[in-house]
């Protein structure tokens, strides 16, 4: 399994994605600084507490990497079907299930790790910056930090599961636009904030979506043996 994953990474030169991840983080940072330094009326709300600050960062990171993950799905799964290279993969003496599982594990782990690390990184930077500028009218307590650590962990796992949902839409017609558009819709749906409320605050919703994502992955893997490859 690890070997299959390594081969997939090699095949698609997924190491090159690191650059993309870094750029995304820089972009999120730029957005945050814009809110932080320029738009005082909005930032009043965002920077009223550490909690809402972390929420904002979490939402940015989640949206970004769920969409990012969907581009990986198109690259390593949808395009294989479209370019018929999947025919090649499936005449190797390797179980189709394992091939598919390796690909989906890459997507899951990618989202998990990038969401986790980006949250840690950006939260850290904002906390440091706030020491200098002191916008947030609150003192940071250890309790708050523990709660945030737990929430980051949970939301990373949730995001990783959710990032698999676009697979369902993409696999229907092996369509790249379908995959990415569905990712954009799902990501914005769960992260949109209206009146300080968003769907991912009710913990059941991200957890349920995560499970749906995993279920979709499971069904895709289960069916791959019996399906014709056109």
């Amino acid at each position, binding site marked *: 399994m690890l070997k299959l994953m390594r081969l997939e990474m090699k095949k698609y030169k997924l190491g090159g994605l690191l650059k993309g991840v870094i750029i995304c983080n820089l972009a999120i940072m730029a957005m945050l600084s814009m809110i932080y330094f320029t738009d005082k009326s909005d930032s009043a709300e965002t920077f009223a507490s550490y909690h809402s600050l972390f929420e904002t960062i979490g939402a940015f990171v989640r949206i970004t990497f769920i969409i990012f993950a969907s581009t990986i799905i198109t690259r390593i799964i949808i395009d294989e079907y479209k*370019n018929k290279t999947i025919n090649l993969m*499936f005449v190797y003496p390797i179980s189709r299930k394992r091939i598919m599982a390796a690909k989906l594990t890459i997507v899951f782990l990618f989202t998990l790790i990038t969401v986790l690390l980006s949250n840690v990184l950006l939260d850290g930077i904002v906390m440091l910056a706030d020491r200098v500028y002191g916008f947030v009218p609150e003192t940071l307590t250890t309790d708050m930090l523990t709660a945030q650590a737990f929430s980051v962990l949970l939301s990373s796992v949730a995001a990783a599961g959710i990032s698999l949902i676009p697979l369902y839409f993409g696999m229907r017609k092996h369509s790249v636009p379908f995959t990415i558009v569905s990712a954009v819709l799902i990501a914005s749906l769960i992260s949109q904030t209206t009146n300080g409320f968003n769907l991912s605050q009710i913990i059941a919703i991200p957890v349920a979506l995560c499970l749906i994502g995993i279920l979709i992955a499971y069904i895709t893997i289960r069916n791959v043996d019996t399906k014709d490859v056109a």
Partner: protein
Amino acid sequence: MGYILKTSHLTKTFGGQEVVQDVSMKIARGEIYGFLGPNGAGKTTVMKMITNLVKPTAGEIEIFGEKLTDKSYSVLKRMGSIIEYPVFYDRLTARENLDLHCEYMGFYDKKAIKDALELVNLQNIEKKAVKDFSLGMKQRLGIARAIITKPEFLILDEPINGLDPVGIKELRDIFKMLSQQFGITLLISSHILGEMEQIADTIGVIRAGRLLEEVAMSTIREKNTEYIELTTNDYKKAAFVLENKLNIRNYKVIDDKCLRIYSDGSDGVSQRDLTKALVQENVDIESLNLKRLSLEDHFLSLIEGGEGVA
């Protein structure tokens, strides 16, 4: 001599339409099997079923003596294939593609890659991305990839597509060499008859999803293969002479100007007698040629016969 592949009553339905119907074919170990049929006859679908890419609606495939199921992965290690057209990871170089292939096949003899490339006459291209290859080069690279691991059974779908005449000749030699030196069994599909005729040991003819005939080339060669083609401007009179003066019934009117007189070995009429009789009866002869029935004619007659029934 055992069979490497046996299919029985293989049928595949796509959206209510039977693309392959009741195909029972047998490929003997070590032979070159030519799979012949017009475009859209179902050749590729059969090949996809053999490589387990497409699952049969009905019927069975037995390969290396084992029944093929959804979970037959180990047999794939003993096969090499190009299905439809050679596909590659375009952005990678030729070398990277072949390396990947070896990794997935669990094959670690790196020298074999070089040998295979040499065999198909592809050199100094290892560092080039496959997307910059011509169709002919891709075809060669695909064959190289399929033979690196020296599989026992090689399945090649239209391998000579996109090659120039020199390339075709080279490939023909390669196929013969693979068969003779390495004892590899080859299943080669094509719609180009002349090619099949030159390399195949057995020919399977498929049309509209049905296997019309499966016959050894040696049998076709023995069968009734010579005929005299007569071109005249009065085919009715010529036919009359044939039947009444020379007592020949085994002939066929091709069109208004052309007749074919078949000879079955001993009782055939000689060209001289034929000319003499026709001249005596005042039939104009434009030309008179002794011809051999090629596979092409055999094949065409099969297909025309099929259409007559349909």
